[in-house]
């Protein structure tokens, strides 16, 4: 894979902007403000948490492929992300715990992908959720 395929101003940057919007409105209706042309390869959410489920609902409304985890990223990574990342495909967005993101960030770097955006949703959540974008880097 050519590490330099990534160019700022394409999907990842747009995804980052849109993600910021989603993260801010994660509690409630998250759809507004997303650049219509950007479509990540996957949207990941943690089914244990309301805010993350709301994030996923917004993603579904956008027609993004949505994948649920419950903390453990093994199956998601093996079945979905690793094959995509190995070909340089797929910006991935998500709202998960910091620990799940730590795992994904480390695994993403093995494929020369990186976390390009990370944001904590507002709202005093009981769990340390973070909204993020992983893209080629």
């Amino acid at each position: 894979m050519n590490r330099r395929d990534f160019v700022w101003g394409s999907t990842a940057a747009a995804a980052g902007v849109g993600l910021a919007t989603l993260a801010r409105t994660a509690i409630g209706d998250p759809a507004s403000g997303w650049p219509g042309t950007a479509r990540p390869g996957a949207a990941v959410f943690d089914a244990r948490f309301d805010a993350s489920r709301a994030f996923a609902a917004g993603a579904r409304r956008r027609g993004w492929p949505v994948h649920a985890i419950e903390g453990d990223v093994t199956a998601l990574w093996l079945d979905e992300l690793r094959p995509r990342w190995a070909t340089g495909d797929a910006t991935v967005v998500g709202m998960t715990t910091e620990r799940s993101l730590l795992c994904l960030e480390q695994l993403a770097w093995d494929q020369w992908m990186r976390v390009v955006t990370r944001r904590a949703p507002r709202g005093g959540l009981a769990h340390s959720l973070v909204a993020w974008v992983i893209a080629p880097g």
Partner: protein
Amino acid sequence: MRVPPGVTQADYAKALGEFERIVGRDWIFTSDADLDLYRDAYSPFLNEPEELKASGALAPDSTAQVQEIVRIANRYRIPLYTISTGKNLGYGGSAPPYSGSVVLDLKRMNRILEVNEPNAYALVEPGVSYFDLYRYIQERKLKVWIDTPDPGWGSVVGNALDRGGGYTAAKYRNHFDSHCGMEIVLPSGELLRTGMGAIPNATTWQQYKTGCGPWLDGIFSQSNYGIVTKMGFWLMPEPEAYLRCTVAAERFEDLSPLVETLNYCENSRITSGFPDLSSPLLGYPPIGQVQLFMENGPPALDNEHRALLGGVKLGYSAELESYGIRKRIPYWELWLSFYGPMEVVEAQWSAAQRHFSKIRGARFRIVDQLKLPIDPAKASDYHEPELGVPSLRAFSIGARTPWNPTPSKGHMWFSPIIPRNGAAIIEANRVFSEAARALEMPLFQTFCLPACFWERAFVFILATPVTEDPATNRRYREGFKQLIKIGGEHGWGEYRTAPVFQKPVMDVYSFGDHALHRLHETLKDAIDPNGILSAGRYAIWPKHLRGTQR
């Protein structure tokens, strides 16, 4: 642009130009954003000025490129720090002990060169992870198993070189012991093969370990004498069956005979799977169940049990013991596992029960009895690493939950080796709990049980948290160093540790006025006179840095 210490900007620029000629511009990393990815995600110096960081990184994809890089590094005296996949979280991750070194990232060297099913071995490059090797074997339906640590995202080579361990049969779960043959790039750029690999066109490189003459493999583990670019491993033939059982003992005093009998059974090969000590009465789960414990919460205790736990001293309470006998909650529960043909594992379990029956009141239970292979989708019903399946579920440990409301930002593993007997478990708890209390360290706050990765010794592997508060992290670092020293005073040393603690740990190994350390330095001066490889790893500094860094 960051520049490595001891190197001029002009020389670094020239070196980078030469590195680029070797690996290509895409595989040289100098921006802050790139280098942040080589920080230790669990650094105990999180966001402090002393945090160990790289000044650059290179990612070669072949042994020949590594040789060229090493020659260039020698020319310009560029300090390199080698990582395989950099996943050694809890023991330093990918950050170099000599801050400012250039990381030599071997992730792209991820070829599985051979998996030989009839002779049950594999030969791999350092960028191969346990997941990679597992998938390779599964895709080809080969009848061999890997032995994986938990989590399984790390490098097969890297974990073995740091002398890590896993969860299946004894012969395989000591990862360095199960290796056979290495290829190494020496600091001069020369290429060396050990064992039978030193014969050109060798036909037994992964079958016979020691070759002839001095066997050097050990000096390339936990060291900085060379860059391992290939390593062979013995694999377990896929067993026909797996049996997981428990031996429950009612009384506190049963700990010693339980451990003695375990030692006999392991050393006699009656059992070879990963033994796992637990205490249902004290609420100490076996390692294989910790994930479930953290995902689902600890088992509910009745009020009487909870109250009695408050009266425990050094793991013991007569009232708690009586309660346990009355309620049939064991004081100790030893998990045993067996691999092999069903008729053999059943016979082994029968023999094990006969030996453990000498403990009055011992009770026996079969937990799992599986014909293998199982459907891989069902592996998550068990502790996957004990079935040779890599997993990332270990990261649920430490996640924020109602029973763990303030998870840490990471952890540092405290890993002393202690003797394999019951008295040593109690003594180590006494010594470390007293010390931890005095140092206000969050370790040994309850009675702790060691892990049984190694057949002939116990190891405690306990997490000291990394927090968001630098003052707390500083206190924990200093306390950790004190615990290392106190352990040394009792004859206990760490088996592995993060760079920040490598000097205090190696200081404990002081027999003969630090004869071991002096020999390490003698070897370093001979093998790496310019001191370019992984300076400071396990406190082995090159000559030119001993005055300032040691």
